[in-house]
């Protein structure tokens, strides 16, 4: 069947199925057709699933979500050929909602990166400009939604891996409150930070998908019951909402003027929609957030990635000199540069004699960041800033300099360290490329973020279809 997969929202697609105007199989087929037409260029998918296995609309999963019987590699060679024997809880919940798995999307290896160039299977390209990156690490999911290759998708966010690619591809992305979405069956990177999040065309779609995946799971003891049910947003005004503009998040060195201009316009719109807007401050969260993150996340990663040793699954490289050499060789051959760098950094930060100065100190900075955000939320309901300091950058621009790549997440990291939810919505274009607007709320404030995001989305009227593909 012929469908405009660029413009069809998940909500509208569900409507087509419910009214009997399209079947699950027809929708699945329409997206597979679009993938066939455009994914040779974009490379959003690592693999697709031929048959619709549900009764509702399709969905794409980042390739670190375990799917029973469907290869799951986390973008790494060390997991090439790994076929999970069980479903992640988010996959189970999507299946119970009738969603059909369309395919597994490309990502930076083990979710370590901000451009999807760290995938062992080649980069994904930005639907708005194929010479540019889609962001990362959930770049495949973002490009799939922006390129009309999936009605919606799931990504994962540790330091900004849902919010930043959503921003660079002009779509909506939610990093939920830590603990609201199960991590059972997710390939682990940094367990105190990893969260699965929806990547969608609209804020209403985002709320719909969050409602499907969120809630306590007995298989993940870090999950909690949502304090309130998820509300699908309808209100289009912001009367009574107090919007805080943290100076540091909006003035840090490196924010491109074109990004700042669009974000300032969105802040002005908040005011026009009835919000009270005021300036606030997170004095040390932005200054020290990146350093804090790049100690804690690699430390946790060095522990989580110890399991890839060639014994139970994945790659094995042997010589003729025993099991220890097998471990070392398997890991050298299987991991790409970025996981190696982070394993080394984390191992060092946790090693005897350095633990307190690095990891211990970073944990204290983490407390400070949480306290600063809590203080800002005494006066404001949401905090706003650009999601990414720049629009999508060119492929290859930052690959030789890991530290420059890390700076892509300078604005998403601070709230992540505090376990806070963050929503990125497109707020305009700069040089023909999408700019993302980040909304941060207190823990469990997703309903408020959806309300504010939806009202702004309606007022902004961003055209989701990349100009060159329209």
């Amino acid at each position, binding site marked *: 069947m012929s469908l405009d997969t660029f413009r069809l929202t998940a909500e509208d697609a569900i409507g087509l199925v419910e009214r009997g105007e399209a079947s699950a199989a027809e929708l699945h087929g329409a997206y597979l057709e679009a993938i066939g037409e455009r994914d040779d260029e974009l490379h959003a998918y690592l693999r697709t699933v031929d048959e619709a296995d549900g009764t509702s609309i399709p969905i794409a999963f980042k390739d670190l979500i375990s799917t029973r019987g469907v290869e799951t590699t986390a973008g790494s060679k060390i997991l090439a050929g790994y076929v999970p024997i069980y479903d992640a809880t988010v996959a189970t919940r999507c299946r119970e909602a009738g969603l059909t798995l369309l395919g597994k999307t490309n990502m930076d290896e083990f979710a370590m990166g901000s451009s999807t160039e760290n995938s062992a299977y080649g980069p994904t390209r930005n639907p708005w400009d194929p010479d540019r990156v889609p962001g990362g690490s959930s770049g495949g999911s973002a490009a799939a939604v922006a390129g009309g290759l999936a009605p919606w998708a799931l990504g994962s966010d540790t330091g900004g891996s849902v919010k930043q690619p959503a921003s660079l591809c002009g779509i909506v992305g939610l990093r939920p409150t830590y603990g609201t979405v199960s991590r059972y069956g997710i390939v682990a990177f940094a367990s*105190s930070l990893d969260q699965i999040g929806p990547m969608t065309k609209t804020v209403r779609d985002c709320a719909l998908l969050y409602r499907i995946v969120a809630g306590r799971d007995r298989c993940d003891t*870090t999950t909690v019951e949502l304090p309130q049910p998820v509300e699908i947003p309808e209100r289009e005004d912001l009367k009574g909402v107090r919007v805080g503009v943290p100076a540091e998040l909006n003035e840090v060195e490196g924010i491109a003027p074109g990004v700042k201009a669009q974000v300032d316009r969105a802040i002005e719109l908040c005011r026009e929609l009835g919000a009270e807007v005021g300036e606030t401050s997170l004095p040390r969260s932005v200054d020290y957030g990146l350093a804090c993150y790049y100690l804690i996340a690699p430390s946790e990663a060095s522990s989580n990635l110890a399991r890839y040793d060639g014994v139970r699954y994945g790659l094995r490289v042997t010589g003729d000199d025993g099991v220890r050499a097998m471990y070392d060789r398997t890991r050298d051959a299987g991991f790409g540069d970025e996981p190696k760098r982070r394993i*080394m950094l984390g191992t060092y930060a946790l090693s005897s004699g350095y633990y307190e100065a690095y990891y211990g100190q970073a944990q204290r900075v983490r407390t400070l960041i949480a306290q600063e955000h809590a203080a800002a939320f005494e006066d404001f309901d949401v905090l706003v800033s650009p999601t990414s300091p720049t629009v999508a950058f060119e492929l290859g621009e930052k690959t030789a300099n890991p530290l420059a790549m890390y700076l892509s997440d300078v604005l998403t990291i601070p709230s992540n360290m505090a376990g806070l939810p963050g929503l990125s919505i497109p707020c305009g274009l700069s040089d023909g490329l999408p700019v993302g607007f980040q909304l941060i709320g207190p823990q469990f404030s997703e309903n408020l973020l959806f309300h504010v995001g939806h009202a702004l989305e309606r007022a902004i009227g961003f055209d989701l279809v990349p100009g060159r593909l329209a």
Partner: protein
Amino acid sequence: MLHVAKLARLELTDEEVERFTEQLSAILEAVAKVSELDLAAVEPTAHPLDLVNVWAPDEPRPSLPVDDALANAPEREAGFFKVPPA
């Protein structure tokens, strides 16, 4: 560098050692910024939520069948993962 690689069980090539030494020095210098703050009086945060002792009833459930557990094994023998001798 080689000591950390040994702890991390990574057999790095000479070229990797050279490249990573330079990159990791720059990264370490950047992250050492956390030491500028005097935080002796601040409690460390290991986890963003205040969760303690999540209890569950101790109910026996069927465990994973051996064949499933071994489904992705690079090598197996008689219901075990097989590895080269130490």
